[in-house]
């Protein structure tokens, strides 16, 4: 059997997804035996020009991580879509926007002003901002345009499969890689993860969920045996797809939802708001108000990893699409 041609690329991400490929440890040798890496900036030297020179659909599988934040990310998504038979949204940023999509709570101008003018470590008396084109004595330099909004990969191009997780877990990465090597191709749109909720695989003892008080993780000594949500901590477990094995909850850290919404759920954050509403142990409006006011940052918590992929896609403002 000829070797598969595999590519991996990062758009707006941290590189953690690329490292997660290496977390399959010695199985990387099986991958190397079955596939040639034709493009992977993290670990190999081929350039964008080399990808452009490939025939259409020459790449068998492309793992695309990172959200679409700027013009370059979009161009690379389109290029790799054209050159790949199978394009996989790899990691939470590509699947749902991930952490970079928290920027959708702000405008492009607010972000640029903070980063290049007002942040404590910045001195920029001339208020120079990045430009898509700049003249230097020797010629012209170009930079990709910074968008006003962060997008998921599938809001830009067609995607075959999804591997969520921040970062994806090694077992799932290997299962996906092995399925593709063996030619056991799942139906389009398949998500390589669990089909149930994170709660379903979390080993903590669950009793009755009744919330009288919402607490911050820094305010409680957690009982490791018991459900974190029942102890008053906001835990995204009930509304998050399983598959990670409860990596965070095992360490008594409440889930932040990096595996995205559960099967059939359209909006992870809205579902969390509904979940909280259904377990608040009060019918007194004043008391309910007092309880929910203790949720410090609903948008940034309920949509920690999925803002770009949510129904609202970000903060809505008058005059901003």
């Amino acid at each position, binding site marked *: 059997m000829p070797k598969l041609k595999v590519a991996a690329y*990062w758009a*707006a*991400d*941290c*590189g*953690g*997804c*690329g*490292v997660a490929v290496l977390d399959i440890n010695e199985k990387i040798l099986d991958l190397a035996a079955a596939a040639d890496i034709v493009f992977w*900036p*993290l*670990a*190999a*030297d*081929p*350039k*964008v*020009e080399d990808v452009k020179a490939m025939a259409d659909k020459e790449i068998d599988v492309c793992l695309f991580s990172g959200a679409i*934040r*700027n013009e*370059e990310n979009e161009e690379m998504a389109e290029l790799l879509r054209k050159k790949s038979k199978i394009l996989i949204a790899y990691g939470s940023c590509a699947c749902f926007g*991930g*952490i*970079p999509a*928290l*920027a959708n*709570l*702000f405008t492009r101008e*607010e*972000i640029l002003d*903070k*980063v290049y003018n007002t*942040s404590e470590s910045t001195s920029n008396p001339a208020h120079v901002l*990045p430009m898509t084109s700049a003249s*230097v*004595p*020797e*010629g012209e*330099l170009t*930079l*990709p345009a*910074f968008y006003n909004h962060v997008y998921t990969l599938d809001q830009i191009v067609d995607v075959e499969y999804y591997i969520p997780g*921040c*970062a994806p877990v090694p077992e799932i990465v290997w299962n996906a890689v092995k399925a593709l090597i063996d030619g056991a191709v799942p139906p389009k749109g398949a998500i390589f993860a669990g089909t149930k909720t994170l709660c379903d695989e979390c080993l903590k003892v669950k009793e009755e969920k009744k919330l009288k008080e919402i607490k*911050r*993780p*820094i305010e409680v000594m957690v009982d490791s045996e018991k459900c974190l949500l029942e102890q008053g901590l906001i835990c995204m477990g009930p509304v998050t797809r399983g598959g990670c094995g409860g990596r965070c909850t095992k360490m008594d*850290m409440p889930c*932040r939802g990096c595996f995205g919404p559960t099967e059939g759920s359209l909006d992870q954050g809205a579902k969390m708001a509904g979940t909280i509403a259904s377990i608040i142990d009060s019918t007194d409006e004043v008391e309910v108000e007092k309880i929910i006011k203790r949720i*410090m*940052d609903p948008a*940034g*918590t309920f949509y*920690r990893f999925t803002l770009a992929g949510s129904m609202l896609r970000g903060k809505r403002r008058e005059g901003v699409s």
Partner: protein
Amino acid sequence: MRKITIDPITRLEGHGKIAIFLDDEGNVANSYVQIPELRGFEKFCEGRPVEEIVRIVPRICGV
């Protein structure tokens, strides 16, 4: 002036490209390293509870 572009810089975390300008003799006249990437952690960490920051900023670099 001839321009050589190396895009992307590889085997590192992050996005970078290099523009090298050559003079008429083919020697390097000047070169520029550019970072085309920005996500804006400086801004979008604002409004997040302090105990959550330690779960957000590890995503600046995951290598």
